[in-house]
């Protein structure tokens, strides 16, 4: 796994992953929205030992530009061994409940724009007949809950899309991985009470993602105990589920 394309490279989890990849001397291509932050991160990863680092600025919502950026990455890296898709944004659920615009834009960014991107990436891997595609979704997609179902439904869309992609691409030796982090201490979750054992640092999640990229496929919970927690949450009978707050 030498050549890695990271989309949404500015997110805390992607950043932590990129640092691990860099210190192992891998070749990286970063895609993120902010051009200044991109240049800063390229310099950082270069110092941390990356074999090579390049990147392109892209707003994921600008779906017409996806193809061009993917091609740019291909030119830079040659054969792409792994792709990590990590962009996303946690909307304010309370605002979404009152505001259609906010709801739709959250679903577009976390859901439909991601699906658009994955369509292009799947084509690339299919041409290569090799590689691995890992996408960071969320445990929030496992069952709609009143505290974050807008975010959750967008992530569920991506997860379902990935299931189909996995079935299709596995026949060509391509691995598709759906990474579902639980609560992570990042700028995205700023403002929550983040104490307690359920919260993880991004470095810990990166430590799960790196080996997963090497040999896992299907769904990976990060950390693993979330598989159990979500299984239990999904098993709660609906009449009871209505009575609790989650």
């Amino acid at each position: 796994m030498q050549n890695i394309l990271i989309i949404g490279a500015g997110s805390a989890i992607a950043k932590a992953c990129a640092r691990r990849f860099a210190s192992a001397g891998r070749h990286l291509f970063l895609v993120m929205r902010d051009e200044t932050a991109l240049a800063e991160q390229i310099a950082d990863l270069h110092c941390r030992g990356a074999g090579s680092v390049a990147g392109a600025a892209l707003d994921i919502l600008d779906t017409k530009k996806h193809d061009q950026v993917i091609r740019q990455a291909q030119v830079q890296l040659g054969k792409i061994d792994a792709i990590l898709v990590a962009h996303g944004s946690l909307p304010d659920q309370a605002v979404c409940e009152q505001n259609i615009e906010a709801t739709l834009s959250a679903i577009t960014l976390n859901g439909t724009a991601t699906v658009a991107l994955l369509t292009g990436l799947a084509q690339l891997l299919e041409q290569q007949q090799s590689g691995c595609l890992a996408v960071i979704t969320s445990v929030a997609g496992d069952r709609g809950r009143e505290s974050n179902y807008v975010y959750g439904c967008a992530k569920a869309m991506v997860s379902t899309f990935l299931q189909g992609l996995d079935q299709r691409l596995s026949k060509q030796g391509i691995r598709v991985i759906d990474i579902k982090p639980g609560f992570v201490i990042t700028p995205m979750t700023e403002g929550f009470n983040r104490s307690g054992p359920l919260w993880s640092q991004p470095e810990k999640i990166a430590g799960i993602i790196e080996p997963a990229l090497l040999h896992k496929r299907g769904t990976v919970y990060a950390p693993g105990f979330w598989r159990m927690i979500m299984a239990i949450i999904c098993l709660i009978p609906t009449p009871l589920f209505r009575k609790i707050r989650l």
Partner: protein
Amino acid sequence: MTRDTAPLSMLSGWGRYPYCQSQIIQPANQQQLLQLNQSFAGIPRGQGRSYGDSALAGTVLSCKYLDQFIEFDPEHGILTVQAGITLAQILEVIVPQGWFLPVTPGTQFVTVAGAIAADVHGKNHHLAGCFSQHLLSMEMLLGDGSQLRVSPTHNTDLFQATCGGMGLTGIILSATLQLLPIKSSQINQTSVKARSLSDVYALFEQAAESTYSVAWIDCLAKGQQLGRSLLMTGEHAKQGPLANLPQKTLSIPFATPSALLNRFSIKAFNSVYYHRQRKTVAQQAIHYAPFFYPLDRIQHWNRLYGRKGFVQYQFVLPHAAGLLGMEAILKRISDQQQGSFLAVLKQLGPANENLLSFPREGYTLALDFKLQHGLFRFLEQLDQLVLDWGGRIYLAKDARMSQTVFKTSYPNWETFEAVRAQYAATGKYRSTQSVRLGLA
């Protein structure tokens, strides 16, 4: 999981005393920091490794996400980083390429900005001085929103106020350091037993040419054994691997009952530690991590002092105080029988020009006291002794010093205040410590 409108957290320094209810502002990158600085009033905070209330305030600005490398020139060992990066992250990159930190404190988990703000010293202070003396320049964000390049030759007054200035002059955005070339990541360590304080003083004088020197001292030993210690000196090995160790750590999961640390258990520990080394002189080659950062292997070791936390007391006595001064204070400490198992004695070299920098030529002693009834009265007595002998207390460790003690022992405080006023820092950058010490 719900989002609070104004999240408040109970924050403390590494000593877990005192706690302060704080709003934490945490910019994800430099652009956000520039914006948030406009309306901010409080203290910037790195990894919260100062012991007392230096990085506490009603509002703190956490710089932990500003931790990127900016440029590294492996040929000349010149490194530019965002100031929220930790020394550990730097070592991971520079050691395999044959470079080391020119000055390092006893933990690698501090940020570069924190190291500058406390103007930290290490085991090589007698030869290499403080952290700031290897700082080529820094980029600062000031209270009025302007950015300024600050170095020993540019805006010298702000440089001398910021190094050792406990974050009270502005926010350090980035720093450029001159690193130290090494041939190996190993340290050749020599450890020598000293039977008394005069013994260890003599050994320090003999070790004046050693690159690194520090003594672990048993502060509970009395009478003839007063000041018995182990002096450790070290040199970078001339050959060997250039490698970092995998970080294997133990963790203290929760605050242990503080009663576990009592005069009997500490006395037993100290005695075992002292007698473990049979020979008077022992030599071995060890990796730099256990040599410089023995406690970093135990995560959350500060929890060992119990729920109420502890105070680390570090003072320096000038050369003029001599053996007599240190003996007087040590005797007072050993009589009290409250000292800790982590007492460290170190010879310091000449002071630098920085206004609030702690080190001055002489000897410094650092030790932990767990919080208990009567502690503060005892420490006030120690303060008086330290003042009488012309010494002072390290701000990065302090949680309780009085305004009078501070202003008497840091005579440059007025100049410091004038520089803060000139660079729009007065009233904007302040901590519970600075308020306690009577700084505006």
